[in-house]
């Protein structure tokens, strides 16, 4: 099967490594919130202010911004914009691409210097690249993870919920 059509399965032990990396980044920079997204906008995991309810929409918008910047890069004959910085009155967002698959995003306020964020995000990006490489290499069969009856149950749920 086309590898681009298969799912990306992130095992529990790798999620733990990712979470430790995000916690370290938040603590060392003093950032409020750190997210790891897939380029499709799905949130892999997030660390920080637990009160945030809007992370699904945040993930979709940040990934959209990044995908849009990739197209701008192409028009400028630039290979890629690897990082994006958005400055607000209270909070700032720094976004960094991991390989071509994941997006690391840190939200921080005036108390944190952007230079520190850039340096520590680079380190985190390097660490997460190694994790991504491992996730890509492992070839777990879907049925091992989901169970063979998953599809039938899923179809029943779809029929139940998606109706007028």
């Amino acid at each position: 099967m086309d590898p681009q059509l298969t799912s990306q399965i992130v095992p529990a032990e790798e999620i733990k490594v990712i979470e430790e990396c995000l916690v370290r980044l938040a603590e060392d920079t003093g950032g409020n919130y750190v997210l790891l997204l897939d380029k499709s906008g799905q949130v892999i995991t997030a660390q920080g202010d637990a009160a945030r309810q809007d992370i699904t929409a945040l993930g979709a918008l940040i990934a959209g911004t990044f995908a849009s910047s990739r197209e701008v890069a192409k028009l400028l004959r630039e290979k890629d914009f690897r990082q994006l910085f958005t400055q607000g009155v209270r909070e700032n967002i720094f976004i960094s691409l991991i390989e071509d698959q994941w997006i690391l995003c840190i939200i921080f306020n005036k108390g944190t210097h952007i230079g520190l964020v850039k340096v520590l995000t680079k380190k985190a990006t390097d660490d997460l690249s190694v994790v991504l490489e491992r996730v890509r290499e492992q070839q777990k069969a879907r049925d091992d993870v989901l169970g063979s009856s998953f599809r039938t149950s899923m179809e029943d749920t779809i029929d139940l919920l998606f109706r007028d």
Partner: protein
Amino acid sequence: MALINVAAREIHCKIVYYGPGMSGKTSNLQYIHSQVPKETKGELLSIATETERTLFFDFLPLDLGKVRGFQTRFHLYTVPGQVLYERTRVAVLSGADGVVFVADSQKHKLEENIRSLRELAVNITRQNKRFQDFPVVLQYNKRDVPGALPVATLDKYLNTLGWQRFEATATNGAGVFDTLKAISKLVISKL
């Protein structure tokens, strides 16, 4: 590609509604948003121009709850249909697991449908995916418009790959859930 988070026991899938301008992509999402149970849907997010045309995308997260122990989420997006936003459509398509192609059944829109479908094929191929294998469901929308092209004519020009296709009138909801069910099941079958 779909994302399976084993630790959180979550599955995320991305479905994109594609098609020419004014074919009814946003109307599909609005109808779904108005009908699904409150606990299933998130907020419908629209980035539109002042005249309510989609500028970047509409976004509707649907949470199907736990299925065999896995929290399953579908994220529905629309692309902006207007010709000038081609690069934006590429951006929204990034990482999609399946596409609903919303075609406009009106006679004078046939060429726009064909052009948009060709563009979709190019954009999917550019993502290193084989278009023939990619999950696509066709929706012939605006069936209520007088003089709508016969389904056989639309099939001839748009459905050369033999996808599942549904007739719809998105503004009153006809065919909207049939389309959504078909693409959801197709995406799940490819997980």
